[in-house]
Structure formats: structure tokens, C-alpha cells
């Protein structure tokens, strides 16, 4: 943590004013760490801190209790300054059992604070966590470099709720509230937000609500009254740009972005989707917006999901399908159909570790080349990528604009890191959003009152004539078509010409997107870090720190990955070195090197985890040397 002021606030408690603090909540999958982390985050956001979160959980719903495989973590970095990443290392580790300590201790800062539930360190739990017989890290001095607070949270919760009439199972389930209350005390955050949350959540189960609130307060009082804790911390509100904020996760922002796209285009939204981690939350969220005339369709499989969206687009709707890697593979043939049909479609791929089932709950950026080249035949498509949780909103809105205005499927890439992570969002109002222009064909456009479904406009896009439109009946399909008429054509030269036209149409989108410019640093210089997608926060933090330290570095971040901004090649040529960090083996690197012939340097991390700021800084400094 970065502390500013220390003051003694009486008794034996010191209040430390900190600029930013990283807390890692860690426990068994059943310990409620995600909820605890989210509540802490929402409270911090609500009271004005900037923040970034990183939920990390196992793929198994209930992995074997007490084992390292079952550890579920939630990391939050909150501060009084701008925060772009969840933090490389944490200041505070909450470890609800031995396995949690084992898994997450390595990234706790030296001298950091550990809060443990001793009930999770009995012989059984120590054994399950894989500690040797007789070893207990809480007792044997291995934690002497840290400040360790040991308490039997389970027992304290039981005592607090004795006589509440609740069963032992329900009482045990409340123990995360004890920890949350203690942390609220420790970090000088109010409990009101969570008390409201509990009352809303358990509106129909007053006894449960009362028990949770009682435990929460007990945790707070435990900090306040016992003399175990001598230090509290305060993080002042961040000096964020003026405006009204909400906290939002990437998947939620994607869902809202789609609702906004429907409203700004005037098209009914139709989502075809099949549940898949980590994309399912987009389906869940959108299903709540039926009052905005949103139709969500949980299809029988990934293929049916995209096909239903294609059918809806053909009918004049905003067809959307949401998925993750394996689902993307299944949708590929249908995506080829949409490509040759030249109809609008939005495909959201929340990337995760691959190949195959890979790492369902971990993040990766390894589907870029699939998005670029995944179809058989020549089937270029526009690709956009979101760079932060809130940016998922802007990006999916941009995907919709391109899809509808250029009559093409668009792939929108996010990933598990920003999909589940959250940040404060200075949300726009409707009048700040650009309209999406939709023109349905209503009149014949060919000789003698005929309709030419593949006659192209200045963008090279074709008319959208939807069923129900009088006089424009026509047939489209997956077979190659003759120019303009769209009739089936096996003519060799026509196929060459159509292939070229489809590619030119996508290239032409570059005329309608913003030019590339550095996010920080100068537009020429020694080194540019070129990024895309969720690496933005880490790169931004690393580059800004290096700029402050006096280094000649810049950060360029791409939203549009196909086509690239028109000036990208020229911009990159203004730097001596171009570094491309990616959570893959160098996919953007290949595209950039192939297209612009610049000797860009790749920096890969394929570990299911985002880059840390220090990893990036070290790499940049190594090149600058």
C-alpha cells in the first residue's frame, strides 16, 4: 500500500491514510469470498474510490472442500488515485483456510497483513491443503515476516448467532459477514451499503437477514473493541472526473451495450445463446431486460444459438450471439454463412484459456487469429476488442454500429478477466450516444422494377430487405452469388470478383473508424507498447509509471483489430521499438509484422492470468537498455 499520513487516533489504534490498497479475499469455494469481495468493492466504489477487481475461481462448482483446487479468490485494488489494474501483489490477504493461505501467500507483499480463520487450520484442513504432518504455518514461524491476525471466525460467528434459531449450516454460512464487518472497520468503510443489500436480498427471510447483519456488526465490533488490531487504514475518495458513476463488470456492460445498441438503432434485439463460462452472465443479464423488448433465446447448442441470431437478423432484428472459445469454434460454419449472406450480426467471444476446454475460468487473449482467419475460404470480418470492464459497453456498441451500417457480422472480443472484473463507470446518458443508422430497403433498385439484393452502395454494403417487404422477394444463401442479382453463380471470374468485393468492403470500414493515437506518451519516440483488449490496464499503469520516471515510452491501444486504423502503420514507424504484450503466443504480433513489416517485439504470457505491471515494466526497461 502507498501510505501518505499516519496519525494516532486514540486508544491504541493508528489510522493510516493510504493512497491505494490491494486486498485478496481467499477461501474455499463455499466460503462466500466472491460475495464478500463484491460487497467490499461496491462499498468502496459507492464511497468514491477508484478500483479494479479480479475474481478468480475454480472451474468446479464445489471442488473438494479444503483443498487447494477449491480455493476461490477475489482481489480488489481500491484507491484515492486512478486505478487501472487489480494490483500485482496484495497488502492484505484474508485466508479462510489453510489451502487459501497456501495458494495465495506467494503474492502477498512482504510485511503484508494476513487475516485468518483458525478453524480453517485444524489438522484436517492442514492435511487437505498439503502441509506436512504436524506443520502449521500459523504456529511454526513461517509467517514471521507478515502481520498475522488469527481468530476463530467460525466459533465467533456461532457465538454471535447462538439463540438465533438458525441451523448450524446457516450460521456457518454467515461467517463471511464477520470477516466483511471486520474489514469495513479496518479500512474505515461504512456498513450501510451492505446492510441495505442484505435487507433487499433476504427481504422474505427476515431471520436470515437479521443474522447476517448481526454477524457483520459483530465483525466490526470485534475490530473496534478487542485490542488485537492496532492499525486502521483510510483511503480517501479518488479524484475521478466529475460525473455520476456506477460500478460495472464487463459482462454486465456488454449486456447494457447491446440494449443501448438496440435502442439507438431502433432494432429489436434478439440474443441466441448457449450457456458457457465465462460468457453466460451476458445471457443472464440480457434476460432481465425483457421490458426493453429484448428477446433472449437459450438455444439447444452453440450452433443453434448463432443460427437463431442469423434468422433474427435476416428478419430485421439486431441478431446477437454470445459465447466463449469452444462455442466460437462451433459457430464458425454459421459465421461463414453470415459472411457470405452479408447480414448484420454481433458475435461476442468472451475469451478464456484454450485450446479445447482449456481453462474455463481463466483468462486469455488467444482467439484473435481465430477471429481473423477462423472461417474456411476467404471470409474477412471486422473485429473489435474491449479494453476494460466498462469499455465492453463502448465496444459492443461499436460492433453493432459496424454490423448494421456495413451489413456484416462483427466479432467482439472480450475476455474472462474484464468480463468478471469490475470498475467504476462514468456511464453516458442516451443523448451522449451516437445514433446507429439503419436503412431497410423498401423499393426496387434494379431495372424494370426488379430488386438487386447484392447491389452495393458507397460503403460497398448491400441493401437490407426484410421479409414482409412488398415487391422485394428474393433468395439468399451460402452458395456463391452473381454480383448484384445474388443468383447462384459458379462462374470462376465472378467468384474472384465477389471474393475481392467482400474483402474490400471490410477494408473500407477503416474510413469510418478513428485514427490510432497514443493513450499516453508521445506520437514518436524510442518505444511504443502496442496493446489490444484487457492488457490495457497493466500497460497503461506500467507506461505511465515509466513516463514519470523519465523514460521515452508510449502506449497505443487498439479497439479495431480488423480493419486496423488507417494510420497505424505510419504511427508505429515513428518509434524505434514496438513492443506487443499479449496473453497469447504473439497473435497481434504476427498481424502487425505481416501487414506493416515493422520489427515488432512480442511479449507473451499464457498462464491464465493478466500481466502484472512489474512484468511489463521490466520488459520495457530491458528493451530500452
Amino acid at each position, binding site marked *: 500500500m502507498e501510505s501518505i499520513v499516519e496519525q494516532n487516533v486514540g486508544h491504541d489504534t493508528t489510522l493510516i491514510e493510504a493512497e491505494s490498497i490491494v486486498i485478496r479475499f481467499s477461501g474455499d469455494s463455499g466460503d462466500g469470498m466472491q460475495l464478500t469481495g463484491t460487497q467490499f468493492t461496491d462499498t468502496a466504489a459507492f464511497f468514491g474510490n477508484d478500483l479494479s477487481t479480479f475474481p478468480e475461481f475454480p472451474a468446479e462448482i464445489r471442488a473438494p472442500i479444503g483443498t487447494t483446487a477449491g480455493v476461490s479468490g477475489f482481489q480488489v485494488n481500491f484507491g484515492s488515485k486512478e486505478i487501472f489494474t487489480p494490483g500485482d501483489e496484495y497488502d492484505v490477504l484474508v485466508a479462510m483456510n489453510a489451502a487459501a493461505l497456501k495458494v495465495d501467500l506467494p503474492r502477498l507483499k512482504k510485511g503484508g497483513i494476513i487475516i485468518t480463520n483458525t478453524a480453517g487450520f485444524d489438522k484436517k484442513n492442514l492435511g487437505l491443503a498439503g502441509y506436512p504432518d504436524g506443520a502449521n504455518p500459523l504456529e511454526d514461524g513461517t509467517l514471521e515476516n507478515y502481520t498475522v491476525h488469527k481468530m476463530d471466525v467460525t466459533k465467533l460467528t456461532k457465538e454471535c448467532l447462538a439463540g438465533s434459531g438458525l441451523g448450524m449450516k446457516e450460521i456457518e454460512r454467515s461467517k463471511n459477514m464477520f470477516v466483511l464487518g471486520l474489514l469495513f472497520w479496518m479500512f474505515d468503510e461504512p456498513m450501510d451499503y451492505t446492510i441495505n443489500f442484505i435487507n433487499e436480498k433476504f427481504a422474505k427471510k427476515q431471520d436470515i437477514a437479521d443474522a447476517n447483519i448481526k454477524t457483520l456488526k459483530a465483525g466490526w465490533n470485534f475490530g473496534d473493541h478487542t485490542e488485537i488490531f492496532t492499525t486502521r487504514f483510510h483511503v480517501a475518495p479518488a479524484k475521478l472526473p466529475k460525473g455520476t458513476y456506477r460500478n460495472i463488470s464487463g459482462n454486465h456492460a456488454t449486456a447494457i451495450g447491446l440494449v443501448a445498441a438496440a435502442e439507438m438503432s431502433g432494432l429489436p434485439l434478439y440474443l441466441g445463446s448457449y450457456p458457457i463460462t465465462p460468457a453466460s452472465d451476458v445471457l443472464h443479464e440480457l434476460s432481465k431486460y425483457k421490458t426493453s423488448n429484448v428477446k433472449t433465446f437459450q438455444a439447444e447448442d452453440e450452433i443453434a444459438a448463432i*443460427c437463431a441470431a442469423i434468422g433474427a437478423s435476416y428478419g430485421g432484428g439486431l441478431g446477437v450471439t454470445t459465447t466463449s472459445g469452444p462455442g466460437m469454434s462451433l459457430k464458425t460454419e454459421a459465421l461463414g454463412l453470415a459472411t457470405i449472406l452479408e447480414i448484420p450480426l454481433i458475435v461476442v467471444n468472451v475469451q478464456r484459456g484454450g485450446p479445447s476446454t482449456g481453462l474455463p475460468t481463466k483468462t486469455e487473449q488467444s482467439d484473435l487469429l481465430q477471429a481473423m482467419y477462423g472461417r474456411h475460404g476467404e471470409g474477412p470480418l471486422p473485429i473489435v476488442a474491449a479494453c476494460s470492464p466498462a469499455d465492453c459497453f463502448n465496444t459492443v456498441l461499436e460492433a453493432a454500429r459496424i454490423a448494421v451500417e456495413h451489413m456484416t457480422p462483427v466479432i467482439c472480443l472480450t475476455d474472462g478477466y474484464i468480463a468478471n472484473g469490475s470498475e467504476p463507470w462514468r*456511464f453516458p446518458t442516451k443523448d451522449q450516444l451516437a445514433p446507429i443508422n439503419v436503412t431497410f430497403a423498401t423499393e426496387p433498385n434494379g431495372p424494370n422494377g426488379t430488386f438487386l439484393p447484392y447491389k452495393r452502395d458507397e460503403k460497398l454494403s448491400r441493401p437490407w430487405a426484410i421479409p414482409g417487404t412488398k415487391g422485394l422477394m428474393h*433468395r439468399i444463401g451460402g452458395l456463391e452469388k452473381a454480383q448484384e442479382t445474388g443468383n447462384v453463380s459458379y462462374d470462376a471470374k465472378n467468384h474472384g470478383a465477389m471474393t475481392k468485393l467482400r474483402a474490400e468492403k471490410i477494408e473500407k470500414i477503416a474510413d469510418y473508424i478513428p485514427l490510432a493515437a497514443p493513450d499516453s506518451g508521445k506520437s514518436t519516440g524510442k518505444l511504443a507498447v502496442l496493446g489490444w483488449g484487457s492488457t490495457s490496464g497493466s500497460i497503461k499503469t506500467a507506461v505511465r509509471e515509466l513516463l514519470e520516471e523519465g523514460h521515452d515510452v508510449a502506449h497505443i491501444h487498439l479497439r479495431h483489430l480488423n480493419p486496423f486504423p488507417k494510420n497505424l502503420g505510419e504511427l508505429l514507424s515513428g518509434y524505434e521499438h514496438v513492443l506487443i504484450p499479449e496473453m497469447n503466443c504473439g497473435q497481434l504480433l504476427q498481424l502487425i509484422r505481416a501487414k506493416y513489416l515493422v520489427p515488432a517485439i512480442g511479449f507473451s504470457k499464457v498462464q491464465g492470468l493478466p500481466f502484472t505491471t512489474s512484468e511489463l515494466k521490466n520488459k520495457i526497461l530491458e528493451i530500452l537498455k
Partner: protein
Amino acid sequence: MTTITEQEVAPKLTAKDFASNQEVKWCPGCGDYSILKQVQTVFPDFGIPKEDIVFISGIGCAARFTYYMDTYGMHSIHGRAAAIASGLKGLNPKLSVWVVSGDGDAFSIGGNHFIHLMRKNFDLNYLVFNNQIYGLTKGQYSPTSEKGKVAKSTPYGSVEEPFNPSELALGAKCSFVSRSLDRDPKHMQMVLKRAHEHKGTSFVEIYQNCTVFNDGAFFAYSEKETKQEQSIYLEHGKPLLFSNGTKGIKLDGTTPVIVNLGENGNSANDLWIHDEHDKTKAHIIASFFDTEYNGVHFPRPFGVIYSEDRPTCEDGMEHQIEELIARKGRPSLDKILSGDKTWTIL
């Protein structure tokens, strides 16, 4: 969608109005020609403006059907027509949507979509041109080919059991199950009309002769010499009669029995009266395929095997939205953007 007011009513369309300007390219003598003709013949009677009709097909000989109808249409990808059609119908329930498929397209590569479409019950019509062979890929056995079928990929005979499409559809909760054949134009027209009138997914299996790769597969049911013994035509409320009315089927408990009328005192009054809405009996009729009862082979049924009125998926989707909007109102986009919990930095 265009709605037609009284003043605008156009002269009744003819079969010709439904023919597109594209040359029909099936093999000479293909059963598909008859199906195309019957569809174009009955459509004017439906009174639907052409622009409100959409054909969606997958891949295969049958799938080319879409190009030959002067309506809206999409010739899509193998097996997926059902899924595309459901998205279209879900978005715009006012359209008359027709899926054209073949036995490979519907039951093999598209099998998953087929069963789920039946279960979900979108109001659309699903025609399967069943020729019991893969035609467009030049003669491999299909999921409806008989066991032992000698074809390109099974030179020593297929070792697999075929699907019985009617049983498959019934098992998947299809609300309208029917069968017809290419060589009986009048019957096919009747079934198409019934399918159109049915609100829900109407499954129409059409036996279709492939002259090149499986010629005569259904001649037993269509040719004069055998037709009367091998097929039975179902009519709601009428007894199950076949063999020129000399034979009938009655039920002994749940076991069907073939009886000769006039023998042993058997009269038409004792026969099983076809009830389209009786699902248990529909299952028994559908099993007149490869099931033998007491060692007796039964004639193949044609007509409407089963029909049931139940809510459609698109209505369910629309009603839920309407009901929610009536109860909660439609939120402004600004409200959605802000959510419930915000804070302001001054």
C-alpha cells in the same frame, strides 16, 4: 410487415406467381418436382401475401427448393435451417415460415435442431423430403435407409437401424405429425393445407423418390399393385381401413389387430376410429413401420397421425414481454444505463 387492407386486396395469386425466375435443376423424374408443384398449387389458397412467406432450407437436393419459390428465402447450411427459422419466427411471428429439409439434413446433421424445434413448438412448417439416401453427395446411406442398405459407403450393406421419423417427432413432443408421398398429389396438397392451418410446428414427412440413387424405394406405397395392401390412409373420425376397404385395424387392448371385414362377424363398426388428438394411439400408429404385432406386418400410415393445440414458443416469448411491460413498464435507456446504485463526484 405489410398488412393488407380491404381496398388493397390483389387478385388471387396463381401457382405461377409462386415460381421464381430460376431454372429448376433437379434430376429428370425426381420426386422433388411433384412437391414443388403441389406447394405452388396450394399456396394461392392460403391467401397469404407472397412477401410474408419465407422458405428456409439447409443443404441437400431438397434444400434447392428455396431458390424456386418467388417468396423470401434462405438457402443456409447443412442441418441448421430449423435453428435459423426459429430465430426468424421468434423475431417476427407474423411471417409464414416453411423449412424444407431432407432425411440427412433433418435427422442426421440437423438431428439436434429437429428434436428441439419440435419440443419448442414455433409455429412453422417443417417439410422433410425423405428419399432414404444421400442424393447430393451421390449415394451414401442415410439415417432413414433400411438396415442392410447397399450404398456407396456401405458396399456390404448398412449395419444400422433407421429412424422412424414419425416416432422421433412424437417422442420429441411435436404438435403435428404427418406423412405423405410425392406420387399422390391430392393427398400431399391436403396434408400441406393441414400443416399450414396448424398453429405450432407442423412436421410433414414426404416420401420422395430419388430416381438416380434409390429408385423405387417407396413404390410399395405408391404403385397400384401393392399400394392397397401396404399403405393405410388416415382420416380423423374415420375407421382404419385399407386394402380397398376389405381390411381394417382394430384395437385389442393396446395391441392392433388386422381383421378382414365380413369375416368372423367383423364389421367397420368394430374398427379403430382414428383420433388425431389421441397421443397414445398416435404412438401405436407411428409404430406401423418396423414393429410387428403378433408377427403381423402392418401397412404404412399416411395422413395426419397426430395433432395437438398447444402454445407456441413465439407466443410465449411475446406474451412474457407484454406481461412484464404491463406490470413493470418499459424503462428508459437512461435508467438502464444508470442502474440502481450510483454515486456522484462533484
